[in-house]
């Protein structure tokens, strides 16, 4: 079994905890409860017949990534950076945020996730993605569960590849 620490980060209210709950407990709530500090949980996923134990840290949202305590990121192998597709304020700093994250943990895998797909029409989604300064890795909806499993599967594959490179 491979053990990996993964960080779930991004602006506040983008749906990090909803993705967390969908991934771990397959549930969703419309009530917004802000995360205080950090929430940690573990899930074992199967990738290419190998088991990867993901210890996911759901970090309280911050306007900018440089405001998140650095120690939370230490030792992380993967980072899931989430933004809200319906709120441009949550992806206006995306370039700076991603640069900061990559600078802090250079060898980690970073996945850029556009969440709340269910709130946008097809045309609005296309427009948003065009406006985005960086390419998004995956579009998800924690509410409907769309692509949430895919996100962790892709991350798992990358983590496995990273492990095999060592």
């Amino acid at each position, binding site marked *: 079994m491979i053990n990996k620490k993964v960080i779930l980060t991004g602006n506040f209210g983008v749906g990090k905890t909803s993705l967390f709950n969908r991934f771990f407990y397959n549930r969703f709530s419309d009530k917004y409860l802000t995360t205080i500090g950090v929430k940690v949980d*573990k899930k074992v996923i199967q990738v290419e017949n190998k088991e990867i134990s993901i210890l996911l840290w759901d970090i309280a949202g911050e306007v900018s990534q440089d405001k998140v*305590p650095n120690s939370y990121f*230490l030792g992380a192998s993967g980072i899931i950076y989430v933004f809200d597709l319906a709120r441009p304020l949550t992806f206006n700093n995306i370039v700076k945020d991603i640069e900061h994250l990559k600078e802090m943990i250079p060898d980690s895998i970073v996945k850029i996730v556009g969440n709340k797909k269910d709130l946008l029409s097809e045309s609005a989604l296309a427009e948003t993605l065009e406006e985005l300064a960086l390419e998004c890795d995956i579009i998800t909806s924690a509410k409907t569960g769309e692509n949430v499993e895919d996100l962790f599967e892709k991350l798992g594959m990358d983590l496995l590849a990273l492990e095999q490179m060592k």
Partner: protein
Amino acid sequence: MSDTVGKGKSDFVKTDANDEILLAQLRQILLRKDREQLAELEDELNDPNKLGAKISPIIEYHLSVLRQKFPAEYKKEVEKLIERRLKESQDELLDVIYPVIGKMIRKYVNLQFQTLKDSIDNRVKGILSPRGIWGRIKALVTGVNESEYVLSGMQGPMIEEVYVIERDSGLLQAHYSRNATIDRDVVAGMLTAIKSFVEDAFNREREDLEMIEYGTYKIYIQSFHLYYISIVISGTLSSSERDKLSAKILDFAEEEIQSRRFMQSQGEDSVQKLSDKLAVYFKTEQEE
């Protein structure tokens, strides 16, 4: 000289003048090379770059000689000088080293005060409580030593769980538990998150979270460079027992962890072995 005999004064003057010119011309011819060299030297002296290029190799050479010979020739002198300087400026020296040792002293003094306070509290509680009074009466009636009676009534500390956790990632490296617990990986992660949060929130560099208390449970945390050991204890723990536990943790770290290369990718076998060692080590502690 014979040529000049009988000639007039003007002739002498003319001859002298010619001699002067000839002499000047001769000087010009003979000293031209010297003058050129002199001009060249002046130029070199006045131009810092040219002067530097000439002098640098000489200085370098002498410096290297000095570097080689200095320890042998001047060691004793330097030692005497330092010794004298240290004696003369003890106050300045204290200013420099105080921040380093001050922290250690403060920690030690705090610990001693805590021990003293614990001891006073325990005595006061013991004497004034109904149990204490009853104990004294019982001791008087039965003839049993009072302190033996008090000791028999104390509930000893019980090690419930021990975790060895990678410091940065919070990934669990080894674990021992008396009873089945909730997911130990999550506990390890959450403990690390709490630890990171506290250490960041109060912005105290090089200071670590050492204890978490909840009800009758205490979580002792001993941090090392790459990992930390966390022990969950139920029951009361005196200062001396705490010191003993701390020493035990240090022994375990030294004998079982630091001797192997501590990395999370060590493999499950290695992790299991370390967990087994952990059980042996801390089960024994409990039985004692």
